[in-house]
């Protein structure tokens, strides 16, 4: 990144922050985070991810140039099947998708190997994302690139997670799924969904519903399911061996 672009971005970031909230006040999810704080928070990620000059792939892929990158596309890194699928479906790392992923990796990518419970604070996430942006010359060198801010709150209402699904209703609804997904759990071409932990199932289906996940068929199918119906399906598929 050129010094000039960096300066402009910093200046703009600061102006936005000042305009929206007092500098000392809490930062909402929709605002641009502070890269310095992000650097500190990134310590947690460092166990697996490197970023910066000469960063290499480690347990996780390096995170240089992550903005605008297709998920699962760092060469020579062995990704999970789930991440490769998500990338082919059209998942691109943007402030928004990174925010969802950092909040709960499984909401965005089923069976990802990113073993991270998630960062619940929207403010913390926006700092980390701002930090990553410093190593992502793609968006920051292009003035019209999307901002580092995270516009959407992806959090799933705990009340939705708490719904106890009716597995009988789920069984009836599962007919829709079983045209493609096999009850026996075959995982070729179309991913297996049997025996999936209930909560992961619910979170994933709501991510399709909110159009955070990319697959068009699943967006369509999930888009018309009510919270109760998703809970019913989750209860049914969790019980399938």
């Amino acid at each position, binding site marked *: 990144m050129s010094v000039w672009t960096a300066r402009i971005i910093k200046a703009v970031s600061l102006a936005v922050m000042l305009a929206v909230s007092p500098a000392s006040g809490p930062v909402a999810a929709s605002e641009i985070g502070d890269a310095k704080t992000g650097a500190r928070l990134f310590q947690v990620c460092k166990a697996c991810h490197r970023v910066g000059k000469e960063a290499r792939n480690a347990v996780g892929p390096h995170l240089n140039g992550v903005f605008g990158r297709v998920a699962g596309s760092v060469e020579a890194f062995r990704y999970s099947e789930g991440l490769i699928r998500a990338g*082919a*479906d*059209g998942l691109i790392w943007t402030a928004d998708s990174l925010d969802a992923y950092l909040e709960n990796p499984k909401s965005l990518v089923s069976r990802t190997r990113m073993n991270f419970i998630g960062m619940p604070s929207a403010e913390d996430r926006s700092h980390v994302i701002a930090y990553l942006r410093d190593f992502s010359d793609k968006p920051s060198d292009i003035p019209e690139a999307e901002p580092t801010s995270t516009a959407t709150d992806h959090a799933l209402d705990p009340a939705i997670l708490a719904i106890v699904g009716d597995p009988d209703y789920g069984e009836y609804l599962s007919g829709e799924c079983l*045209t493609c997904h096999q009850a026996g759990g*075959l995982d*070729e*071409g179309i991913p297996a969904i049997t025996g999936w932990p209930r909560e992961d199932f619910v979170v994933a289906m709501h991510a399709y519903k909110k159009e955070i996940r990319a697959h068009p*068929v699943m967006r*369509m199918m999930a888009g*018309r399911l009510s919270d109760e119906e998703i809970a019913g399906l989750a209860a049914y598929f969790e019980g399938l061996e």
Partner: protein
Amino acid sequence: MSLSRRSILKGAATTAALSVAPMIMGASHGKPKVVVVGGGAGGATVARYLAKDSKGALDVTLIEPTRTYFSCFFSNLYLGGFRTLESLGHTYGKLASEYGINVVHDWAVGVDRDKKTVSLAGGASLPYDRLVLSPGIDFVDGSVPGWDLSHQNRMPHAYKGGSQTELLKAQVEAMRPGGVFAMVAPPNPYRCPPGPYERVSMVAHMLKENNPKAKILIFDPKKKFSKQGLFQAGWENSYPGMIDWLDSEFTGALEEVRPHSMELVVGGEVTKADVVNVIPAMKAGRIAELAAITNDKGWAPVVPATLQSREDENIHVLGDSAHQGDMPKSGFSANSQAKVAANAIRGALTGSKVFPAKFANTCWSLIGTNNGVKVGAAYEATAEKIAKTSGFISQNGEDAALRKQTYEESIGWYAGISKDMFG
């Protein structure tokens, strides 16, 4: 096993089950009887779901003349060399042995709606409480002048699975170098809207490898067709200069085909071809007509939420034969409709809970190696029709990884729907 021996065995089982199964009895004695005509995408699915979900409370009989169902879905991939014919064949053994469905290999030749019986070519007459018809399509006589079923060996339609597809492939393989493959495309509505165009893609794929100077002509009575933009861009990229799509506005109408001289007369001009694939206009399978539940266009109107015939509440019509609204005539649609119908039938005959109807469809097509596209939609039942609520379609310019993934997804779908139909 003969029908009579099966009936006796079933009868014995019925007596034992009677005392435990809480149910609303059918008009006939014993367990409520459901007879399903046609063991394809709609019929096999509805039979399996009825038997599976009623847990023995229903007596389900499936009438299907063939012992092996060769699916039309993926038959184009067989033409293109991406599948074997065997991989498209499915038998009915599991439906009989694992689900207790009485599978009868015979033709249904008549329906007596007053007596509620179906008569079979073999002479038997089967009583029903509910009848499900899913006989697929038949062709409209005279819709392609010069062609009738007696010409299907010279000019195959390959629009019913199995031997016709095999014949068409053999003909394409035997084409002289630089020869012409002509397709007569069908008018709306017809089975599998993208089917003819996927077929052209697959024939082009085969010719590109073995007969690169050959040409493909499509004579189409329609002004536009399913996934047109995707197919035409795909043809441009993968088979440049090989395929001409000629709509009738441009060429004039197809006047006749001449199977003996392998000619087509279009807009006053005679074209000679080496292979002619005639896909005539379609109507509901003949048995729907014999049951007198079809309209003047030859399709069977149904009640959207239950797939019951508008003419007779004891008959449900699924899949290609049904006149239902916005759903395309596809295997996916037939399978989706079957589950809604199974739920409604079970509710009516056993008192089980009936859940709201939901329908969906996705159709994948292969344009060339690892180049898959898809279109799909969700539907709901309104009073008038099955109405589309949302949909999606692949885009031009998608990257190779997505196209490959879409193709692989279609393979997963084929395996999934086959299991869903045949167990």
